């Protein structure tokens, strides 16, 4: 049932990102909403619960995006591995560190994207545009990233308690 919750949340995030947010110019350069979700998975869930969701939505995002196929998948896997590595020596459950973890995740994702574009389009002149886009995304991530993480965690707890009630009633 945890998978259902994760899939539901991811679908909502993808729809929000591809259909609702483009109507608001404020979010023109907002970061990928699935990044905080991948961070949330790596912080609060097991490998078995996270990997299938990451693989599935990596492929979904690759299908929706105009980038090379596998770019989102690669990004999410590296993000997951990176955060897993960080939590071995840093206590990031602490809310003080959350904004920086999300910002670092967004930064990593952008580096992978820029690297890919530079690799496939050598000579592309996008440095100034890239710097401003990355800066804006990182700032958004610092201020709104932890809210998403707290939101995911809260709703997962609510979902679990609701499931328990349903199971108890059925028994």
């Amino acid at each position, binding site marked *: 049932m945890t998978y259902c919750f994760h899939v539901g949340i991811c679908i909502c995030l993808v729809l929000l990102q591809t259909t609702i947010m483009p109507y608001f110019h404020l979010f023109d350069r907002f970061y990928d909403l699935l990044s905080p979700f991948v961070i949330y998975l790596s912080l609060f869930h097991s490998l078995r619960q996270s990997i299938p969701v990451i693989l599935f939505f990596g492929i979904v995002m690759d299908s929706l995006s*105009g980038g090379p196929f596998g770019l989102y998948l690669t990004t999410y896997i590296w993000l997951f591995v990176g955060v897993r590595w960080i939590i071995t020596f840093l206590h990031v459950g602490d809310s003080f560190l959350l904004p920086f973890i999300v910002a670092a995740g967004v930064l990593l994702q952008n580096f992978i994207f820029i690297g890919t574009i530079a690799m496939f389009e050598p000579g592309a*002149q996008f440095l100034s545009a890239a710097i401003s886009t990355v800066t804006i995304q990182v700032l958004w991530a610092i201020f709104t990233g932890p809210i998403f993480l707290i939101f995911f965690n809260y709703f997962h707890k609510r979902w679990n308690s609701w499931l328990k009630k349903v199971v108890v009633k059925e028994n």
Partner: protein
Amino acid sequence: MIAVNIILLSVSNRRYQSYGPGRIAISLIAPFQEAVSRSIRFVKDIWVHYFFLVEAAIENDNYKKAFSHSVERNNLYKELKLSNIRLRSLLDFQKTITDKVIAAEVIGKDPSPWFKTIMINKGKDDGVKKGAAVVIPEGIVGQVAEVSLHNSKVLLIIDPNSAVDALVQRSRARGIIKGGFADRCVFKYVLRKKGIAVGDTVVSSGLDGVFLKGLPVGQVSDVVKPNSGIFQEVTVTPCVDFEKLEEVLVVLNLKKHMFQSEQ
């Protein structure tokens, strides 16, 4: 007695005089009457106005609801009117294209700011094929990059992976329109000796076998002639406002195009 009474009444009726006791009685009673009637009027006023206010409040609520409904309906009509104008313009444009085209609605945009694609609500079932040209009356939008049964992904001309064979309308200088950044395009491989000025219109050459010849692509916004090299650096601002893109036309008979261009 009755007769006397009647006579007295008729006499007093003719003279219209008020007598002392009558005036005193009036003077005594009148203030009370006035006070009582004022009080009654006051209570009546409060009563009537209170209920009036309650009724007015209810009416006000109803009017507010009706007003919000009207505003909502008005917005809907405005939206329909705008959509009608856009669709009419698409229809007029469709008449100018000899090829078979299909109108599609934009249903989603690329999740990443680094890549520029849109999703449309027409797919394989509607005859859309990979590589089909996507246009609107203002100019070229892009090319179908992926097709599913009912939807397709369109690669916009502002995407770094996109390329369109184009020429400058005035000087006929040829080059390739590639996606740039900040929603602009780069006109690549244009020879230095070719004269290009800011404001020139760039149109499709039709040589790529995808787009019809002469479709507007954009306007030259910057020209840089480096000291060395054989090409000049030209920046083009697309004619299409990709932020406001809602409906597009997909050209369906791609093979015929390819054949024509090959000829």
